[in-house]
């Protein structure tokens, strides 16, 4: 204890009081550990600035500059809206997004209702099937639709003369792609219901329709809004489906790609990028606001809802759910068939030749190993950054303002479409004079970009897990003079291991399937499998593109399988201390 710290003690405080002055504020001393924590928080702040804030800022600047970097205000936007071809894409994007959202939400609601509120058979299998689209890159449904409804498609007649290439194809593909995302939210919303509300309604002799309108629907209205917002944003900003099956029907995401990659018109690309960003930001904000309300709906004393068998209803919903699951499996199955049939639909002999990427001159298996390498790095590094970052924002002492600012920034990536993030990365990292430009055209930029792209969901998972950990662990270890990092490693990480595994698998699967952000950033030696599939399809080899998509699906599925095995073993091993 130094004398300096003692100096303003007792006597001073006693002297000051009678004169009416404010007593001196105590300034908490920071220990060495506090400084390490603060350093780490500052580092996280710098990381966010480099990987998210500055790229987005550069994008914004680019949209109000001309080719020679002079500020021209909204002139680019004016030019955009003066071009009927470009504004048509805006209308197109809204059209497919709105119709796609309505259909997806309708189907996902029926499916979620069947899963949570009925006693229909096969609920486990049906739930698993519904999540299958998450394993596939979004271009895969597009490819499958070509086989089903394209010029040689088996079901072409069902379109009654309409083309699959265009809005119809985009909407069907997007419904497949967005369905599991909506389902997850709606299942959660429909699971939190109070049994007693239904018992009360029954005892008051309300008709089933009335119960549905007055209890069920209001109970999950926030979930419905939230799901609609998420689905709308997904469809609005998706690149894979319209790229493959959009034909001449342009949407904003494909416009960005064409402006930047096709015409090197970076300024117009930035303008379209911002147009993509705005609806995403708005729906993201609405979603965050309503999700907060959803949580409050169920009080701690509520009795969880348990469906009771209703044979007629159960059968009806089983049929509906099977039809929807059938549609999902049809799309995936068609993509698989497309990849193993010699020549659809004329020579239906199974073959593996479309998987022989080396012979087909499509960069061989190199892109696959690039994808694996990137996904593994994203999973490893990303999980470490996300979890440590969440720990710092959740559990450290002091620097409260900075910590809540970081928490807020961690929410932003969810609102930024991949294609916009990719574009922002080009503008920022490829700018002449940026010392960070050396990672341009490397694997590093793909990894950094992908971690940033999927940051938010992982961050929220980590925060949720950390919130369930006793808030006093840090206080206890401080009182026992145990360094914080030891408690982090010895207690916090083991306790949160299930969440950590969830995060890493989520990152891996998304890194395998992503197209939108990385399509701007890959170099010839870092080409990824998902991008290769798009290029291969562009070159007219749809069967091989399907094969590549299937390789991604299988890889993701294998990893998911490994994950659930690992979780099961972990659960067995830690059962002793996890049971409550």
């Amino acid at each position, binding site marked *: 204890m130094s004398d300096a710290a003692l100096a303003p003690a*007792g006597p001073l405080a006693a002297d000051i009081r009678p004169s009416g002055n404010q*007593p001196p504020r*105590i300034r908490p001393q920071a220990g060495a550990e506090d400084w390490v924590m603060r350093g780490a928080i500052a580092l996280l702040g710098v990381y966010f600035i480099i990987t998210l804030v500055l790229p987005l800022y550069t994008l914004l600047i680019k949209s109000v500059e001309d080719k020679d970097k002079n500020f021209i205000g909204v002139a680019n936007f004016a030019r955009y809206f003066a071009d009927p071809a470009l504004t048509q894409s805006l209308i197109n994007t809204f059209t497919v997004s709105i119709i796609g959202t309505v259909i997806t939400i309708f189907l996902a609601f029926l499916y979620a209702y069947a899963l949570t509120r009925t006693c229909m058979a096969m609920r486990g299998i049906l739930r698993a099937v519904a999540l299958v689209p998450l394993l596939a890159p979004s271009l895969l449904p597009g490819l499958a639709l070509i086989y089903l409804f394209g010029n040689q498609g088996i079901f072409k007649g069902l379109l009654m003369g309409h083309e699959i290439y265009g809005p119809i194809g985009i909407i069907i593909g997007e419904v497949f792609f967005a369905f599991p995302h909506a389902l997850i939210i709606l299942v959660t919303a429909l699971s939190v219901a109070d049994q007693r509300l239904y018992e009360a309604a029954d005892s008051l002799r309300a008709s089933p329709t009335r119960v549905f309108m007055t209890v069920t629907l209001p109970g999950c209205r926030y979930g419905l809004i939230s799901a609609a917002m998420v689905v709308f944003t997904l469809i609005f900003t998706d690149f894979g489906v319209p790229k493959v099956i959009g034909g001449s029907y342009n949407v904003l995401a494909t416009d960005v790609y064409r402006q930047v990659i096709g015409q090197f018109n970076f300024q117009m690309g930035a303008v379209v990028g911002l147009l993509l960003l705005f609806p995403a930001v708005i729906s993201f904000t609405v979603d965050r606001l309503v999700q907060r309300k959803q949580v409050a709906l169920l009080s701690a004393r509520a009795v969880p809802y348990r469906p009771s068998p209703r044979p007629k209803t159960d059968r009806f919903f089983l049929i509906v759910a099977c039809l929807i699951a059938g549609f999902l499996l049809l799309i995936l199955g068609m993509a698989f068939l497309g990849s193993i049939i010699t020549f659809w639909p004329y020579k239906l002999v199974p073959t593996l030749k479309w998987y022989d990427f080396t012979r087909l001159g499509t960069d061989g298996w190199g892109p696959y190993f690039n994808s694996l390498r990137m996904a593994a790095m994203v999973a490893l590094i990303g999980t470490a950054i996300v979890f440590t970052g969440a720990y710092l924002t959740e559990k450290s002492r002091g620097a409260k303002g900075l910590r809540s600012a970081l928490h807020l920034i961690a929410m932003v990536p969810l609102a930024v479409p991949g294609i916009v993030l990719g574009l922002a990365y080009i503008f920022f990292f490829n700018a002449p004079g940026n010392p960070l430009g050396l990672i341009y055209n490397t694997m590093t930029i793909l990894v950094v970009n992908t971690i940033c792209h999927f940051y938010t969901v992982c961050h929220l998972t980590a925060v949720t897990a950390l919130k369930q950990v006793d808030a006093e662990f840090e*206080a206890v270890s*401080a*009182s026992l*003079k*145990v360094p914080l990092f030891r408690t982090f490693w010895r*207690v916090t990480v083991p306790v949160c291991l299930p969440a950590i595994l969830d995060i890493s698998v989520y990152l891996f699967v998304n890194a395998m399937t992503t197209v939108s952000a990385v399509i701007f950033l890959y170099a010839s030696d870092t080409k990824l499998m998902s991008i290769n599939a798009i290029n291969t399809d562009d070159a007219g080899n749809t069967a091989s593109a399907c094969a590549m998509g299937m390789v991604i699906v299988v890889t993701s599925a294998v990893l998911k399988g490994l994950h659930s095995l690992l979780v099961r073993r972990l659960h067995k091993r830690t059962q002793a201390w996890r049971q409550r």
Partner: protein
Amino acid sequence: MAVDAGGAYLRIDHVSKSFGAFQALKDISLEINSGEFVCFLGPSGCGKTTLLRAIAGLDIQTTGRIFQGGRDISALPPAKRDFGIVFQSYALFPNLSVAENVAYGLVSTNRPKAEIDARVAELVALVGLGGQEPKYPSQLSGGQQQRVALARALAMSPGLLLLDEPLSALDARVRQHLRGELKDLQRKLKVTTIMVTHDQEEALAIADRIVVMNQGVIEQVGTPLEVYRHPKTAFVADFVGQMNFLPVERVAADRVRFGAIEFTTSGADPAARPGVQSMLCVRPEDIQIRNVAAGQGNTLKVKIDHMEFLGSFCRAELIVDGGRHLKADFSINAMRDLALQPGQDLTIALPVDRLRLFQAESHV
């Protein structure tokens, strides 16, 4: 180190704590002696936990100083202070066994393993959990978990033991049993202990001294008997134990008027000036029904409204003329001897030395 020569082990000196505009602690000063068992008692939100966390350095006070063993610890982070702590949730590490939890702090001290093992065995035996070392917290009962937390907090032989509502998560029977053990253990180890609780019965049973807190200030500091017998404020009178309040008007230094009846009182709140509406306080067990003489002072005619049988005694609800209710505790003996029945008329006496007088506004 000469700053604090008062001999108190822990000295809290004009401590205040604000959260934004809300003042959780208002100019708290308090001294705690070495080896003392002190309870911070008060309703939720009274600032007792805030004060405990300030002493631990977990939420450092806004102004004011805290000295421990003569050392100014006001601004130190928790890791540089000398205390062991048990939280209401126990905060046991779920993935570590009982032995590993208790050894958690010892391992970081780089002591030889044999020494650590011996210490752990000693501590586990001390809290009566011998043989439970390999179990995980989730395999233990609430009471056992509480003991593990206590053993862990004592492992580093801290100068100060802080207990934040350590018994409130347990059911009543276990709680009563454990508080006795806690007190025995503390007496054996002579460790200065502060326990936060909202349970006045627990505080009365366990503490050497009780610090009654309300709305960020200390209402009274004293032994359990002092606090119970001579509450300094109406709040303390109401919060600790059962209390009857009668609105009275003060007519002289030791005389009050309740309706048409006058009472003689002893201890009075100085704020309760003559002519001002005051509150006359009497505990249910102090109300006298046997041997009440006809001409005796401080008597009151009442009617028994109803009676509640509470095992060893009976709590009667009495109605005074004018409709006021009084609670009175009667022994089973008295009930039998006087054949007390609901609806019966009675004359009761309020003993002078058991009456307290407080200013009416100060009654919370």
